[in-house]
């Protein structure tokens, strides 16, 4: 089910990241950053003063609709970590991959899916039909800068490794890059 709730959830995470970038509009250098660089930017380096931080908090309350405290801006040093606090990317990536896996996984629990061997969820390795389809779906949902050719190749290598669990694959993709 490519147009599942989990696909929308994953798309929304990146839409929210873009909204957080727009929320930093008082810093004119932020709009020049690509989405991956922005995700890994230290929050207080682009919003150093109290006024800028408070304006960002007001903006983020409007979109993406998060109630952020001042402490959050230092507790979660990057925008990626801040967004993960409100919407954990690994859970979203894992849930989306679950909808694209074989057999009983799409209707099973996330806990069991994360523990399962990658080879059981995506038989045939990186050239198998299941992973080819899953990879294609991922590239359609995740912006290219956050799921680069290099990361796709690394993920394919994990899919080919029979010792790896789905958790390893999910964490690798959720690292972005």
């Amino acid at each position, binding site marked *: 089910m490519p147009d599942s*709730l989990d696909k929308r959830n994953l798309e929304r995470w990146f839409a929210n990241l873009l909204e957080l970038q727009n929320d930093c509009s008082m810093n*004119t250098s932020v709009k020049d950053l690509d989405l991956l660089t922005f995700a890994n930017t*230290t929050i207080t380096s682009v919003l150093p003063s109290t006024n800028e931080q408070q304006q960002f908090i007001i903006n983020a309350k409007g979109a993406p609709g998060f109630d952020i405290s001042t402490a959050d801006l230092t507790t979660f040093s990057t925008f990626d970590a801040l967004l993960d606090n409100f919407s*954990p990317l690994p*859970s979203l990536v894992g849930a989306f991959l679950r909808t694209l896996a074989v057999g009983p996984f799409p209707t099973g629990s996330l*806990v069991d899916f994360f523990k399962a061997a990658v080879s059981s969820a995506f038989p045939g390795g990186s050239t198998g039909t299941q992973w080819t389809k899953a990879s294609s779906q991922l590239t359609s949902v995740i912006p290219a800068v956050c799921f680069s050719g290099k990361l796709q190749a690394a993920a394919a290598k994990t899919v080919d490794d029979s010792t790896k669990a789905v958790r390893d694959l999910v964490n690798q993709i959720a690292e972005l890059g």
Partner: protein
Amino acid sequence: MNHRKTKGFAILTSFVVVSLTTCQAQNPVTLKVASESLVRYPTLQPQTAISVYLADPLPVADLVEKAIGADPHHPLWDCTKPSSYRVAVLAKQSGGSPKPVRYETIMYVALQGNDDVTGKRLTFCEPRHPGMVQLIIDSNLSNTETVQVSLVGLPDGLTAQSDGKLAFTQTGFSLSVVPQAAPSEKLTNGMSRDVGQLSLSLADSSLFPRSSLPLDVYAKSKALFSTDEKDSQSSFSETVGIRRGIIPKWYTPVHFEETIQGNQSATSLSNVATLGFTTLLPWSWSGKVFRNPIFDAPLPPDATVNNQYTYRIKQNTAPTLKALATNDYSLTLSFSWASIRFPWACTLFDWIHIRSQNTSTQSNSSYCLGAELNGGSYYLPLDLTAAKTQRLEGYGDVSILLPLSSLTSFSKFFPFLGSGDPAKSQIRIKYADCVNAANNYARSKQWTYGIELMK
């Protein structure tokens, strides 16, 4: 044994076993929770919230998916209702484990995220959306108490609760004590001498955190004590104020303050009533003017405007200072403009081979030399100068900043200084031309050199 009785007993036994199996509670899933100290805008009132994570860790995500059921608009368990949660306050019992002593009232549940369709705050939960909700509570927790959050009314015997270790720390109170040496400090008798100074700062950003007032009440105290009471910079000020925002989507807190201020020996003493506001200047237009290879200022200055009525109880009568009006008015404007960069310096440092090639974030890659400007003015229309014109006192400081991470020699010997954010370790060369409003606008000029290390 009667056959019919035996069959009836067997049916009854089976029914009891099935019932027990159905009703038996599963092992509770451990909820991840966190405490939040929010400030609501525009009222600027503090608010205590508990973040409850509904999509992390995975067992919770699975549980919430089951609890919502097939139709998120008609959920089996409604994440939006305060009655779907229980916040138990635990207290340590002597010699035993913490026990619930009361339950906190949940005022409302704030879903974290917007609806894709309406673009407004979510009004229902789907699996993994929102990933977190905030329970807004009217908290009065003590340091010895912790909180345990449970989900209530879950279907199919599902249970979930936090580990009961969540503690709340009171924020909003700050204290700073900084001893410093001031060489050749100017005195009010016109002389100069080396002095020692102690800077004290105390603030409580919300005096009545649980009040229903639509504004924030705060207090602050600031003092600079000197080893010489004639030090022109010596001062104290005790302030109580109220504040709230006026423009809902633009951070513009308006404040009204009552301050008693003076110099260290209180030979100058005055009562100041202040009405003013602080804001960021609109800056989206500035890219073409202030972002170029020579001068890069991506952030706007912070600006503050104050109207002040001053009643002078006592004035310093030193011969170097002219007496000011007893009932005085001043319009003060001040600004702070940080994050100014000079990208050309990186080219220069590369050319003379003193720039470190340490990796830094892209947003700071052009930071090899920076500046910070602070300034302002006091317009005193009731105080005339010797030329019988209205008095205007300007002040300001300029700092040149050199991040240590940009210098090869520092990065080589102190690699920990060269990593991360360049603004965290830098050389500051500062020139300040100050006036001390607490001491009849006594003026002093000062050079400062230092290395700043920030964690």
